[in-house]
């Protein structure tokens, strides 16, 4: 017998965690994107003082679990009295900003490799042709390199956004009650894991479906030549 009242109640409670899930995802996507572009530029630089630190950063953040990064920022940093006295402390004490920071730093490492691949995929001949036509470096970048790189990187970057949505669930380990955190709470209270899981799954799949569609729409907009 399906208990519709329980489903409706669970669903309502879980939706209460949506603003937090979306806020974490949104902040991490935007901050991660900016940092990823900086890292990709550093990796593509021929100067090894830029390349090596970026390599090391990517190695560390891709090689260790996000959970350890969150714990390191949330629990680890509070150990230093210098930090506790600094002006950053109000932010680093707050689990929301710690989780946002960890998510952003983590996703930047993955996304920078996506963008690096995008930039490397731009054919050299195109750049040379643009320069030969007399386009300046910045004009070549804006009109030739950036659009082509973006087209190449967008599908993989879309996957990265879905990974951020999923990763935002780890914020529940530092006391933030987003969708997964609330779901775990309800399960522990009611001991009805299947029903609660179905509700939470429906929410996440809807969000991811919307993200996928949005990325597809963006792809449609930036690739006019592929439309038939």
């Amino acid at each position, binding site marked *: 017998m399906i208990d519709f009242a329980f489903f409706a109640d669970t669903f309502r409670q879980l939706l209460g965690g949506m603003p937090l899930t979306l806020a974490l995802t949104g902040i991490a996507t935007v901050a991660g994107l900016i940092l990823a572009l900086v890292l990709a530029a550093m990796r593509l630089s021929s100067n090894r003082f830029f390349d090596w630190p970026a390599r090391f950063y990517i*190695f560390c953040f891709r*090689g260790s679990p996000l959970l*350890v990064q969150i*714990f*390191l920022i949330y629990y680890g940093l509070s*150990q230093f009295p210098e930090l506790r006295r600094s002006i950053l402390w109000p932010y680093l004490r707050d689990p929301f900003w710690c989780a946002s920071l960890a998510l952003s730093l983590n996703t930047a490492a993955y996304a920078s490799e996506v963008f690096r691949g995008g930039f490397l995929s731009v054919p050299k001949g195109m750049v040379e042709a643009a320069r030969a036509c007399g386009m300046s470096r910045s004009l070549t970048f804006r009109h030739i390199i950036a659009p082509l790189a973006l087209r190449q990187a967008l599908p993989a970057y879309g996957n990265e956004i879905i990974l951020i949505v*999923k990763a935002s*669930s780890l914020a529940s380990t530092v006391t933030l009650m987003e969708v*997964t955190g609330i779901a775990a709470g309800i399960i522990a209270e009611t001991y009805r894991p299947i029903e609660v899981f179905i509700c939470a799954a429906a929410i996440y799949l809807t969000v991811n479906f919307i993200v996928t569609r949005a990325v597809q729409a963006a792809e449609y907009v930036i690739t006019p030549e592929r439309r038939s």
Partner: protein
Amino acid sequence: MQAHIPSIMEIIGFGPRGWGLALLLATGVTFAVALSGFALGAVFGIMGARAKLSRRRWARTSADVYTTVLRGLPDLLIIYLFYFGGSVLLTSIARFFGSSQFLGLPAFLTGTLALGIVAGAYQTEVLRGAYLAVSTGQAEAAKSLGLSRWHTFRLVLAPQILRFALPGLGNIWQLVLKDSALISVTGLVELIRQAQIGAGSTREPFLFYVVAAALYLVITSASSSAFRLAETRSYRGVARR
């Protein structure tokens, strides 16, 4: 008298007050749970890939649902499902047999199941792609040489599928390894849980999480070299363009 403040090396070392041995054992648990999850994932992956390539519509549809749902949900949510779901199931079975005891699945088993079912969804896609990359001419040639279906698969198709699948499988292995950190929420004393315990009792959270992160980096970089080696080996005897 001034209290003795242990140095960093004393805390993470192997002395009587050191956490070194505990951390190394926990690293072993992390490796073991990731490995068994990955192996279970291979079973699900093979079944999923077979279903996706099947002529039967219901098999293809159910495999599609499996990969879409399991790849779209947070792994933490799936771990909670198995953790609580397993204990609800076990307790109700025990109640059926007249016991009023509360039971839970062993944490290692919960972890293996949760990691395996997630890894299986990813492995389905990798194995399906690798199967499709092997040209149909290979199977036809083997058949015309008189090889049985099983021999065709074992001697001709499987080695080539594995060769094409290795890079993707390497990525999934890294994913499973890092996901295994989430099993710490069920109380399994793997690397993260051990670091939490150490951090709590010494009040040195930064040190313990840095050491845990470093140990993860050691495993992930060692396994990426191992996969690179396996990849080169899988191409022996093949002319590379």
